[in-house]
């Protein structure tokens, strides 16, 4: 790669801090919320995670793209990130499954990126000042001009993005092996590994658009008396800006449909139970986060991607119209709420639970995969 083979690019944060680097992926201009992800593996899964919609992702790992891009690892049908920031992109793809290079993939999907900048300095800046809006451009060379555009772009707080990422049509992921349960899964930005993890445990997963109604949910598995469980997926946006899905969940809980939620599904569970949500300063994005399961006191290393969290009291039971709610998991780094549990006020039986992190992993460790088994137990009324 001769010097300056790549076009120059600039990155400007909404507080004016500017980084100059080289174009990576598509040329052009892009805006979004700047967030950093600390995972050292799994860039392909990260890029295709719908939760990153409208976010510009800064990779703290310097070398990105080494294993190219394959057809098995994407977590959805497309790349969702609004922009991509890496330090040293790979020049070749080295993996037996690689089909094409990351650079080509970004170009094909018109994702504007920047490389060659001090990603650690940028990460430290975001850590100190918090996630903020950012612009990347290969067209505009004047930071002042780009800054104006950044300040004019949309903010993440108060934004509902579920409709933008959800499936247009409902579809079914069949159970692998013997079918044991039928689940209605609301797609708020679902990752492919989630229904996969359910399917391999004998769950037939009916993935529904984000706009599904209680009737749509109850229509799932109607021949055997409705769904065995309701699932809310991860997804982008501010949970406080979502009302329809919260009401749907409250209605489902009132009808005692067992519930499991991941990430955005945890935040909406929290809201359905009457808790508030708030925006974290710079979020959790990575695959090394220690979470303690408060029931077993065991620690699991987990995959995270969230900028909002539930505001619920730890070590305290909360009475809700649907039962007794408790915080089931906390993050050991910052004590933030990582899971909720709802039990029947009379019987003490589990009615629903959710976690803020990603038991489906992809990318990330499999420590939390037991939560899918817990969902099975819940539906089997064993807990």
């Amino acid at each position, binding site marked *: 790669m001769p010097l300056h083979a790549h076009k120059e690019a600039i990155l400007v944060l909404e507080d004016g801090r500017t980084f100059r680097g080289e174009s990576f992926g598509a040329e052009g201009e892009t805006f979004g919320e700047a967030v950093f992800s600390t995972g050292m593996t799994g860039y392909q899964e990260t890029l295709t995670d719908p939760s990153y919609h409208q976010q510009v992702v800064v990779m703290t790992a310097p070398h990105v793209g080494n294993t190219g891009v394959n057809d098995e690892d994407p977590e959805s049908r497309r790349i969702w990130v609004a922009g991509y920031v890496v330090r040293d992109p790979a020049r070749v793809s080295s993996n037996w499954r690689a089909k094409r290079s990351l650079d080509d993939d970004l170009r094909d999907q018109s994702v504007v990126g920047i490389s060659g900048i001090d990603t650690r*300095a940028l990460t430290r800046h975001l850590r100190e000042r918090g996630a903020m809006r950012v612009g990347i451009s290969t067209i505009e060379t004047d930071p002042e001009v780009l800054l104006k555009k950044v300040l004019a772009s949309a903010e993440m707080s108060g934004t509902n993005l579920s409709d933008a990422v959800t499936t247009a049509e409902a579809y079914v992921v069949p159970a692998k092996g013997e079918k044991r349960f039928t689940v209605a899964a609301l797609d708020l930005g679902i990752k492919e590994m989630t229904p996969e993890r359910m399917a391999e445990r004998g769950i037939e997963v009916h993935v529904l658009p984000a706009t599904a109604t209680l009737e749509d949910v109850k229509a799932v598995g109607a021949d055997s008396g409705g769904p065995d469980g309701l699932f809310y997926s991860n997804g982008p946006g501010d949970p406080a800006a979502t009302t329809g899905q919260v009401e749907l969940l409250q209605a489902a809980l009132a009808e005692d449909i067992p519930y499991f939620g991941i990430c955005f599904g945890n935040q909406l569970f929290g809201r359905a139970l009457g808790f508030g949500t708030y925006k974290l300063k710079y979020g959790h994005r990575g695959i090394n986060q220690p979470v303690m399961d408060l029931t077993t006191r065991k620690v699991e290393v987990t995959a995270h991607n969230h900028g909002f969290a539930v505001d619920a009291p730890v070590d305290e039971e909360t009475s809700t119209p649907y039962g007794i709610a408790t915080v089931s998991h906390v993050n050991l780094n910052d004590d933030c709420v990582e899971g909720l549990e709802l039990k029947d006020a009379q019987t003490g039986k589990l009615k629903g639970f959710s976690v803020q992190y990603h038991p489906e992993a992809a990318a990330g460790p499999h420590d939390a995969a037991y939560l899918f088994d817990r969902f099975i137990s819940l539906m089997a009324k064993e807990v």
Partner: protein
Amino acid sequence: MPKREDIKSVLVIGSGPIVIGQACEFDYSGTQACRVLREEGIRVVLVNSNPATIMTDPEFADATYVEPITPEFVEKVIAKERPDALLATLGGQTALNCAVALDERGILEKYDVELIGASIDAIQRGENREEFKKIVAELGGESAKSVICHTIDDLLAGAEQLGFPVVIRPSFTMGGSGSGFAYNEAELRRLGGAGLAASPTTEVLLEESILGWKEYELEVMRDRKDNSVIVCSIENLDPMGVHTGDSITVAPALTLTDREYQKLRDLAIGIIRAVGVDTGGCNIQYAVNPADGRIIVIEMNPRVSRSSALASKATGYPIAKIAAKVAIGYTLDEIENDITAGPNGSTAASFEPTLDYVVVKVPRFAFEKFPGADTTLTTHMKSVGEAMAIGRNFTEALQKALRSLEKPEAVFDWTQEIVELDKPALLEEIKVPTDGRLKRVMDAIRSGATPEEIFESTRIDPWFIDQLFLINEIAQEIIASPELTADVLRYAKRHGFSDYQVGKMRGMTADVVRGVRHALGIRPVYKTVDTCAAEFEARTPYHYSSYDEETEVAPREKEAVIILGSGPNRIGQGIEFDYSCVHASLALSEAGYETVMVNCNPETVSTDYDTSDRLYFEPLTLEDVLEIVHAEQQAGPVVGVICQLGGQTPLGLAQALKDNGVPIVGTSPEAIHLAEERGAFGRVLAQAGLVAPKHGMATTFNEAREIAAEIGYPVLVRPSYVLGGRGMQIVYDDEALRSYIEAATEVTPDKPVMVDKFVDDAVEIDVDALYDGTELFLGGVMEHIEEAGIHSGDSSCALPPITLGAAEVERIRVATLAIAEGVGVRGLLNIQYALGSDVLYVIEANPRASRTVPFVSKATATPLAKAAARVMLGESIAQLRTAGVLPRTGDGGALPPNQPIAVKEAVMPFNRFRTPEGQQVDTVLGPEMKSTGEVMGLDSDFGRAFAKSQAGAFGPLPTSGRIFVSMANRDKRTMIFPIKVLADHGFEIFATEGTAEVLRRNGVPSRLMRKHSEGTGPDGEKTTVQRILDGEVDLVINTPNGTSNAKSARMDGYEIRTAAVMANIACITTVQGLGAAVQGIEALRRGEIDVRSLQEWRDIVGHHDGGVSAK
């Protein structure tokens, strides 16, 4: 789950002497463990025979036993101390094997000692290959197909089944000792036979070949609540077939998708759980087939390993420290991560570090020390040390690591003419992994090879190959650029090119490039190793340089002292120098300075992030050090740089640093030069009325011959400016002198060869002293057990001297003072003397910390290096006496009468090296240093101390059985008395013809043994060599015929000593050693040899503790 309250005292076993495959990384881990346990209020009892370790400093344990790590001695310690628990997972394979032996002998049960960390069952499951395979299979993983063998017949049958090539892996050995590849039956018989012999259970695993696959390691940590985390992934750049200790390795793994990585992770956690390593760290190795991703689990170590040390330094996650905490009951979530300061204090240790940089480790070899040794890299570890570098990308880290090796030939070089690069030959050459292969790969790239061709030859992952192409492209751009512009320079620096490399390509000196670079404002920034990729604020200033935008060096108020470490371990410059650097850091920190450590050796205590106030993990080159000095000067006041404690590496930088305006504390560079330059030093001696052996300097054979003729043979020849006696040899005639000069490649007018009179039959004396400008403190006077001519690093020695009287010590004191004054020493000084025919010759003087500083410090309970650091910063010896750092009166030359005798014995790596034909390399000692480590034997008299030193280094001396004796003619008179003593003690004496004849005439009965050259007798009588190999001999005494004449006698000696090494029995090669051995054997036969801790000795002798307490 908090700390267990039932454990009040813990016995920690160290790893003993430094050997290949088990180096100072275990001092690092053991030191961390001792610190942790003491902080927790637990009584720490330590056993380690290695005096050069920080962990054996008396302030790191409550009872420190510098005693042999054998079940016999450790039992004595247990019986005396009655510890509640034994922690054996931090002392390498030595400690683990000792724990297994203690368990097998019922000692742990007898004294009710609980093995914490890993149980015996877990150790067995992890190391027994059959059981381990079962575990892997149950987890759905795969192992290489293999057959367990206990005999040669098993091996042959196994190879039939698996097909050649096959891998040979002996059970229960360390550093892959005894393992290798066999491509045919002959190799199988040879390597397999050696492997069976090397295994304590006579067990060898024969395995299908997975040569060329990608190799990975994961470091796992687990607590007693079954919380497990992966601390680090490590990828080997050299594919399968090269021992990981000899591979270039990279952290984190860079060529795995998340799916593949998570499979390795799941397996790792499943394995540690199934093996049952309840608490602590372990290391798991994998091979991944690049063609289809098939994963094979190779092995696991149920203990902290060399890779753990690397992983700790690479991530900032202190594995040994955490392993010690979880061993005493803490769970990972209860342990703080020191490095971070999160919103609620620090984050917990129950997470997985994430890196925003790349770490590269490169091995350092010492093949030049073992002529004839096969330099091919195999599964049998051969490297003696390693350097690690950190960069913001792979290219930066790799090039920094290569220059950290301090081998000019290791660094990529584009100035070699392109016509000399023959592509087909290079592609053939790089098929075989050797030291320096990577550079030949670069040459192949320059010669026009394609990435595919390189891959075909080397099986190095294509991503790494591309990175090498990238480096080459940048080099071409540097060469082709019409001007050295800011863009080009910045580009070069971003990918790790040194000023020297750039200068060489541009026809400039490194100084000029640096000048240009500074003028253009291109300087490195310093980033922080923080375990979390900047997600949380780091509290610990553990830095590395990078050519990036933002620096993280914090401003400071206190005056700083920068201490330069010693770089990668090599023969002649090892842990002893790190010891001195660490001591300086501790002492100066106590004295109120901010200490800044610079080093690139991941195995050391000095590169632990909490040893100094700031740590720069950087190469020790002028460029890198100057930039650090600059950065620290920007941050606050810098008093100066200490170059005197890290051995030759920092010493070599002193003058250039000073020339660049850097203040050097302690002995000035001019004084250093004065001591090293023969002419100037000669004048210092003359002025003091001292004599050196006659000598001269030569640049050609003819000059050398003239000098030799004048001063008379034998002469000692060596290159100038050396450490560890590199290239030294004693020659007895013109012919040998000619071959030496011809073989010496680097003889030039500015690098002449020294020709010294060799003082025959002299006693060699080593002195370590401290000088403040007025007062001399004689640290210790060591008398070598072997006569002069054997490198001091390889000689055993005794302190206090066993045969020198007060008058001689006084002469030595006067001479040392004169030299210290004459040279202008401020700090430490090491002088070697030879005392022959009542003349005290000065062999050499080194105005720096020596290899023996830790030994002397421990033997005399005086912290010499700490005192030296404070002298260097201006305190006087008198002040240090008052401050209690040094004894109020007296010194190491005037020790109290009840002072114990300390014997140092060197440990050799001969069993690691073979010639390409599979022969063992010769084991004779000479002026070239060959040892990798040392042990100390400490007792009230010489015989016992010597016996302990032998037990620590080789295994116990025999107290009965068969002794084989074969002496050179010149030694025959001296041997009679000691051999007679042994015969009187009931030993059966075997001898070769000449030796037997002399013994018979002196009334010592002996039996004749056939010489190797005579072959097996007509009735099948075995030769000496066969008997030794068959274990029929308990001790070998063989002094070599040194002259070049008696070829066959020399060959016999060679075969005998080789056999002794292979059979792992003591082999004495000098008359002096024989005398000492006899005293040792007598002490053993008299019965009980006791163990006594350093703390007890201190109380007996009544020395002050002289200590700066452990941090």
